[in-house]
């Protein structure tokens, strides 16, 4: 099957700022594809070009085999988008938000009501059916935004930071639903600045910064390629301990009070280190995408 999104040398400029800088990627049918990166990396800008609301500055961008510049209406009819910023309609209650949105897709009233009720159940919002938007918690609004993105039974679902600011429970419900949607065979495009979210959900992802891709691949393969399978984490190392670690000839990164030692040999290094500096706390843990980002940029994605 051909990719559902094809981008080649895609560029987006805002006056003199290049928000998206010559990127190329393919998104395959049925996968969860992630854009991971810090605030301002250009994730939303890419999303907005894919959903045909932001004009492409240059390069090629095709969605479902159609050029975004030529057939925006047809493309938009088959996308479901949960934007980063809440734009639910405050003049309507929960169910009306879905049914009025269905009308923009030209859906007949009875089908819209049926679909809206299904989706409220799917996102566990049945009890809020007639509640006005301002009365909803942040998590409920987010769930309703996702429900709204599904109203037209889309082939591609775009979720721009679907769990930012949510409590763990609300996050897990959304993650669960995203997996369920994938099982239904839909393609999901996701942006996030949460490493764990990207690692948990994405089949493939790109790490993005300042409009460019730093890396792409599956989470596991990225971790294996860049970090290896384990990391040694050292807290509050004094200068001498740090100097020692750096002489071990391995990649060492510092972030605030922590040192990260990346090496295939990190277990052996740790044993030796424990013997030499028993007073400094150190631990071995499995590598994550956070480590990938740190190794690639020398910085953490987000301070904890």
């Amino acid at each position, binding site marked *: 099957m051909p990719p559902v999104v094809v981008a080649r040398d895609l560029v987006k400029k805002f006056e003199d700022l290049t928000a998206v800088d010559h990127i190329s990627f393919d998104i395959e049918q049925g996968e969860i594809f992630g854009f991971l990166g810090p605030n301002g990396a250009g994730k939303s800008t890419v999303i907005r070009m894919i959903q045909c609301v932001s004009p492409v500055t240059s390069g090629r961008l095709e969605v479902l085999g159609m050029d975004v510049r030529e057939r925006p209406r047809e493309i938009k009819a088959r996308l479901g988008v949960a934007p980063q910023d*809440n734009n639910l309609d405050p003049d309507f209650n929960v169910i009306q938000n879905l049914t009025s949105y269905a009308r923009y897709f030209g859906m007949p009233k009875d089908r819209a009501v049926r679909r809206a009720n299904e989706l409220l159940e799917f996102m566990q919002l049945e009890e809020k059916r007639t509640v006005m938007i301002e009365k909803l918690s942040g998590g409920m609004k987010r769930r309703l935004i996702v429900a709204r993105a599904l109203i037209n039974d889309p082939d591609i679902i775009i979720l721009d930071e679907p769990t930012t600011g949510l409590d763990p429970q609300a996050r897990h419900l959304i993650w669960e639903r995203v997996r369920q949607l994938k099982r239904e065979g839909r393609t999901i495009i996701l942006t996030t600045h949460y490493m764990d979210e990207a690692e948990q959900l994405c089949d493939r992802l790109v790490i993005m910064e300042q409009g460019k891709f730093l890396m792409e691949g599956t989470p596991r393969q990225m971790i294996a390629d860049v970090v290896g399978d384990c990391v040694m984490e050292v807290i509050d190392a004094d200068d001498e301990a740090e100097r020692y670690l750096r002489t071990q000839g391995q990649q060492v990164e510092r972030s605030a009070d922590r040192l990260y030692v990346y090496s295939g040999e990190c277990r052996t290094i740790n044993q030796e280190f424990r013997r030499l500096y028993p007073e400094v706390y150190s631990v071995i843990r499995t590598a994550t995408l956070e480590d990938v980002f740190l190794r690639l940029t020398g910085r953490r994605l987000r301070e904890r």
Partner: protein
Amino acid sequence: MNLGRGAVAVWRRNADVFFKTWKTNFLPSIFEPLLYLVAMGLGFGGLVVGLTYAGQPIDYIRFLAPGLISISAMYGGFFECSYGSFVRMHYQKTFDAIVATPVSLEDVIVGEIMWGASKSLINSTIVLAVIALMGWLLFPAIQFTSLTLLLVPPITFLAGLLFSALAMIFTALVPNIDSFNYPFFLLITPMFLFGGTFFPISQLGAAEPFAYILPLTHTSLLIRDMSLGMSSPLDLLALVYVLVMTAATSYLAVRLMKKRLTR
């Protein structure tokens, strides 16, 4: 232009919201014309003697009543597509949500302007009903019996398109919601006063030609003549003016809105 059925869905959205709260929406539009009729028509009109319109003597209240219909047509659309549209666009992000569907930005703007015109039609039809009731109960001078009265609602809709599109131009330009004070102060209030509403523009003397620049002068002329069952060659000219201005302002409104919202 990239225009389709989506405009109707946008219109329906606004209509749904309006009719959800129709009670609070209708009451002011019933009482305001009533107050004007009594205060200006009865109170002030009693002082007016020897008024003529199109060469014929006319009771002041009979002159005034169609003016009130025209004013409500102007305010209905202009309010809706200035403050109303700005709130939807800027604060509620309703336009952003809609353009993520197959509805285009052009559809949104045209739908908003059609809804603004519908507000003009609704408001001025209420005013017309109040006038009819008052004519029947209290003021025989405002019993309008000419069949051309039936043309008044469509004309208020047409006038509504013009004032809504005009408002939409400002909505595309203002930096914030307070800035609407300027078009209201510089454009709407002068029209309210000098657009052939409370007195015939012939009273303006040497300044009379300037009144013809104002859109309200033309729409109030049409509405008055159709209400009273009169006609003059100026009516046709007024109709052409309204049609041309509506097309021009709508085009400009869409252009400027696209410029503002496309990022």
